[in-house]
């Protein structure tokens, strides 16, 4: 998989990695500095919260709506046995045999258990908390494909149940976490993390796009069902959305590439990599 990539990818990988890490560190440091004050002064006290709110609820509802519709369509399509390949919708055969079921279940257990075992500070009671185990999501996606993404979705549900967060918002979290693994799985051409192109793709799709998509997907869902979920829009868009984005980005930017680099060879050797277990049927 790690074929020689054009030289352009080396500087691109460095630039995208620096942008992703800098944004994530900036977001988390500024969040940590004002997290005590948010209770008193509202989400606008955090620079990211203020930036989000300055764009207005209307903007986020349109942008989030686009991400939500596309994300939901992709989720349904993949589970129905179809996928996009080379710009066309093709049928894919995932066996869902014992190994796929075991992979999905163990990913769910590791992700759910990891989220619970490494849980620290609650950021919004009943909705989210600081989640170091999110670092696993793009890694599971690029290693195990759809069974890994389904495992991530169920793992998030299990963590919600154990943390006392399981509510109507968890439906958004279910698909949002699927997307967190799905985006790098689908868009990374080289999942080995052994070339500059692979590193560039990981930071672009796994860290930046995945984090933004997951965050906007869940936030838009919470906004849509606010009458049921019970979280005010001011906190959905001023606090929840930027926090989820920063949390996902920082853990995946710092740890994700190292994890994927170390785990890719054994996964490939044991025949558990998605590319060894999936068949695409392309009809002309």
């Amino acid at each position, binding site marked *: 998989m790690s074929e020689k990539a054009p030289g352009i990818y080396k500087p691109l990988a460095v630039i995208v990695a620096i942008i992703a*890490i800098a944004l994530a*560190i900036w977001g988390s*440091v500024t969040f*940590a500095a004002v997290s005590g004050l948010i209770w008193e002064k*509202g989400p606008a006290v955090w620079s990211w919260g203020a930036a989000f709110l300055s764009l207005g609820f209307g903007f986020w509802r349109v942008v989030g709506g686009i991400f939500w519709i596309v994300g939901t369509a992709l989720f349904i399509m993949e589970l129905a046995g179809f996928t996009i390949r080379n710009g066309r919708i093709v049928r894919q055969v995932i066996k*869902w*045999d*014992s*190994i796929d*079921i*075991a*992979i*999905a*279940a*163990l990913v*769910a*257990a*590791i992700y*759910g*258990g*990891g989220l*619970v*075992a*490494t849980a620290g500070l*609650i950021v919004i*009671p*009943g909705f989210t908390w600081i989640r*170091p*185990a999110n*670092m696993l999501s793009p890694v599971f996606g690029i290693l195990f494909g759809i069974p890994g993404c*389904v*495992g991530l979705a*169920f*793992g998030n*549900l*299990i963590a919600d*149940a*154990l943390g*006392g*967060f*399981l*509510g*109507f918002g968890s439906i958004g979290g279910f698909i949002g976490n699927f997307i967190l693994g799905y985006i790098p799985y689908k868009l990374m051409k080289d999942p080995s993390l052994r070339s500059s192109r692979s590193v560039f793709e990981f930071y672009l799709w796994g860290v930046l796009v995945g984090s933004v998509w997951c965050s906007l997907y869940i936030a838009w869902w919470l906004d849509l069902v606010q*009458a*049921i*979920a*019970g*979280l*005010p*829009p*001011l906190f959905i868009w001023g606090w929840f959305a930027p926090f989820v984005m920063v949390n996902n980005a*920082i853990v995946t930017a*710092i*740890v994700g590439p*190292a*994890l994927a680099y170390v*785990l890719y060879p*054994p*996964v490939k050797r044991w025949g*558990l990599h998605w590319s060894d277990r999936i068949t695409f049927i392309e009809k002309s």
Partner: protein
Amino acid sequence: MSFEYGLYVPGRSVFHRIDPRAKIIWALTVLAFSIYNGNYVMNPIYGGMIYASVLIALISSKPTSFWYKLFGGLSVAILFFSLLFWPASVPLGGKPLLVIPVLGWKYTDLALRLALSKAFLVLSPIIAIATIFITSRPGDLFQALVKWRFPYRLAYIPILALRFLPTVIVEIRTIIDAQKSRALELEKGSIPSRIRKYVAVFVPLMIRMMKSALELGVALDSKGFGAMKTRTFSKELRWRIYDTLILIMFTALYAVMLIVITRFLAW
């Protein structure tokens, strides 16, 4: 908490004996009445009564102390959060009712109604759903999903994950202890350096779990998992009149309380 049976806590309470499908319908009923109250009626007394009913269901199931601590802490946190943020987010008119001296928070009757109703809207369904998991064997929940025509291979994933959850949590703790004994300090350093140290925890965990996945796959194959399109169970779930009566009782209770409270205890 050991999570020996996943989230399930063995017992013989009323809720343990109800069909899991009836419990799921009950939780949906709680959700429906909570939504109606949280958005249209906005009566905190009614919201509090629904909350009390799910709390009674939870307590009567005799869960472990973990659940009391979890939902005790969560209830306080959500009430605090709602009282703080809902009045700030949605400025309403109404009569000034309460000023909290040290904090300086001011509440009108409408703001207080809104904040408390929203808090109960979040809390009651969460506790009702948790009660389902605490009082239902994972296998019974799996069977309930299959009976509702959920594809059984997909339905088996969360059930198997719940079975492995205790193993994973123990593994994570063991690996953390082992790495700490090798001088890994997870609690020290800047945020990025603390996050980076988790690589030393998750890599060995993943390697062990991948080996487990292969062994588990063989074990499932040897038991003929997935060989048939439909799945049979050695002990079939049976819907009894008892389940219907419990559901009618709860629905009637919520409906009667709604009428009585909105007519005679309007706030």
